[in-house]
C-alpha cells in the first residue's frame, strides 16, 4: 500500500469520527451549527 492510500484511509477515518461526534452533539442540542452566533 503506498503513502497516498494511507493518507486517504486516515482522512476517511477522521471524517467518520468527526461526523459521529458532530451528529451526537447536534442530537444532544449542543453546537447546533446553525445559529451559534445568534442570541438563542
Amino acid at each position: 500500500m503506498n503513502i497516498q492510500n494511507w493518507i486517504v484511509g486516515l482522512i476517511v477515518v477522521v471524517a467518520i469520527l468527526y461526523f459521529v461526534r458532530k451528529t451526537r452533539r447536534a442530537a444532544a442540542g449542543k453546537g447546533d451549527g446553525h445559529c451559534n452566533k445568534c442570541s438563542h
Partner: protein
Amino acid sequence: MPKVVALVGNPNVGKTTLFNALTGQNLRTGNYPGVTVTRSAGSWAIPGTKVQLIDLPGSYSLAAHSPDEALVTQFLQGQKGPRPDALLVIVDASNPERNFYFLSQLMDLGLPTVLALNMVDVAADKGLRVDPAALQKALGIPVIAIQASRGDGLAALAQAVAETLLAPQAAVGPGLPIDGPGATEPDCIRKRYAWSRQQLVNAIERSQKGAMKLSDRADRILTHRVWGSLALILIMGLVFQSIYTWSQPLMDGMDKLVSWLGGHLLAPLPPGLLKELLADGLVAGAGAVVVFVPQIAVLFLFIALLEDCGYMARSAFLMDRLFSKLGLSGRSFIPLLSSFACAVPGVMATRTIADRKERLTTMLVAPLMSCSARLPVYTVMIAAFIPAVRYYGIVDLRAITLLIFYSLGLIVALPIAWLLRKYFQAGVAPLFLIELPSYKWPNLRTVLRRVWEQSYEFIAQAGTIILSVTVIVWALGAFPKSDAISADFARQRQTIEQSKQTPEAQATAIRILEADERGAQMQQSYLGRMGHAVEPVFQPLGWDWRISMAAIASFPAREVVIGVLGTIFNSTNTDDAESMQLRGSLQNARRADGKPLFNIAVALSLMVFFALCAQCISTLAVIKRESGHWGWAAFTFTYMTVLAWIAAAATYQIAALLGGAG
C-alpha cells in the same frame, strides 16, 4: 466576584442592542418583539469595576404569562440563584407611559436601579420630549438619555451604574403587590398607571409636530386588509426576484474561483486515490456547496433589512387574520418567520407563546418553513430544469418557482396546525396583541453583520459537516473497486490511444471513458449496493439509487445534499470539467437506459421532498428540549418524512402525467 446587573425592559426597546454596545458581543437583534427569548451574560467594564451584565427577554409585567416572561420574573425575584445587585432598566422614550408600568413593578422590587431612556430620536420625531433631569427628580433614581444603536450616552450610563453600585440605594416604587393575585387586580393595575402618569407629568413635553405621520401613513397601506396583503406578496416577490438576479453573477464568479482553485490544487498531484478523494470529495462535493454563498448572503440581506426596518411585525399582524381561522394567532407567526432563516431559533422563539397547546402546535410546524439550508437545493434544481422565462419583461418564472417553494412550507403548515389544534382540543385562538414598532432606516452595521455571520456559518458548514459526509460518501462510492471493470476500461483506453484520432479527440474520448468508468465502479460500490437496496422505496418519486442515497445522506442536515450530489454526479459528468456547476452535471446524468435522469417531474419531486422533510438533527433536538419530551421530536420526524414522501410521490406522478417526465 463581579457585580451582577440585569438589563430589563419591555420587548423591542433596544435591550440587546444596548447589551451588544456595552459588552462588545454580537447577539442577534431585530426590530420586532420576541427576538430574545433566553438570558445571556456579558462582561462590562465600568469606571472602577467590572460587572456581569445579564440580557433578559423583554417583558411587559412581572406577572408572567409565557415561558420567556417567567424567566425574567424568576431571575429578578431570585427564585433561581441570587438576585442581581442592580437593575439597568431601559425604556422606549417614544412610549413612556406603557414602559413605566413595568418600571413601577421593577422599582417595587427594591433593588438599586438605573434608568436608560432610549430612542430619544424616535420620541423627538413623534413630537415628544422627555426631560431626564425632571424624571430623575420624580423617580429618585439616575436617569440617562441614550441612543443605543449609535452608542450615544453610554459613558454617562456606565458612570451612573458605577456610582449606584458603589453606594447602592433601594429604588422606591408605588408600593403595590408585584406577585400573587393582588398584582393582577384591576385596582392595582389602575394605580400603577396612575403612578406612571404622575411621574411623567412634569418630565414630558408634547408638541403637535410629528405624530409619526410617515409611519402612520405607511401603516395605513401596509397593514390594510387588501393593500397590505398585496404589498406583502409584492415585497416577497421582489425579494426572490432579487435573490435570483443579484446573486447569479456572483455565483458564476464563485464557481470560476472554486474551479480555478481546485484545478491548481489538484494539478501537481500524481494520479491515485488521494487525487480522486480531493477531486471528487473536496472539490466536487464541498466546492459545489461554497458556490451558493452569494445566494445565502443576498437572502439574509433581505431578511435583515425587513427585520430591522420594522416590517416583520406588520407581516405578523397581517397573518393573524388567516392564522386565527386555523386556531393559531399572529403570535405563532413570529416564530414561524424566524424559522425561514433557521428552525432552531424559530422553535426557541415559541417561548413567547403563553398558551401551551398553541406553543406546541407552532413548534411542531416550525420545521416546515423553508430555512436557508433549503435554498441551494431549490436553486440548483430551478436553474437546471425550470426555463428562464420572463413575463412582461420583469417577472421571472424561476423567481416565481422559488417563491412558491418558499411559501409551500407555510401553506402546508396551516392545515397541519389546524389538525394538531383539533387533536389537542385547543379551542379558539387566543387574542393576539402586538406592538407595532416604528419604521426606521435599517442599521447598516446590524444588517451587514447578519449577512456576514450567516455566510460564514454556511462556509463553516461546508468545511465541516458537509465535507465529512462527502468524504464518507466518496469512500462508499469508491470501494470496493472491481478489477474486471478496471481491466475492461483499460482495454478500451488502449484502443482509443492506438486509434488514429487527433490528440484533442483522443483526450475527449478518454475523459468520457474515465467518467463512464467511475460511474460503472460506483454502480457496484458499497454506495451503489446500498442505493440499489433502497431504490424501490423512492421509485414512485421518480428517483434512481443515486438521488435516493443523496437524500438519505442528508438526514443529519439537509444542506449536505448539494455536496453529496456534487460527489456523485460531478465525478461521473462526461462534460468538460471547466465548471463546478452542479446543474450541468445533473442535466447530463443518465439512467441505465440512456434517458436523462433528471427532468422537471424529478426536479419538482426532489424539491417538494426537501421542502417538507425533517432533515435536521439540530431542529429535532431543540424540539425535544423545548417540548420536554423525545416523543414530540419523533412525532415531528415521522409526520414530516411521511408527508414529504407522499407529497413528492404525488408531485412526480402528476407532473409525469402532464408530460414533465419526458
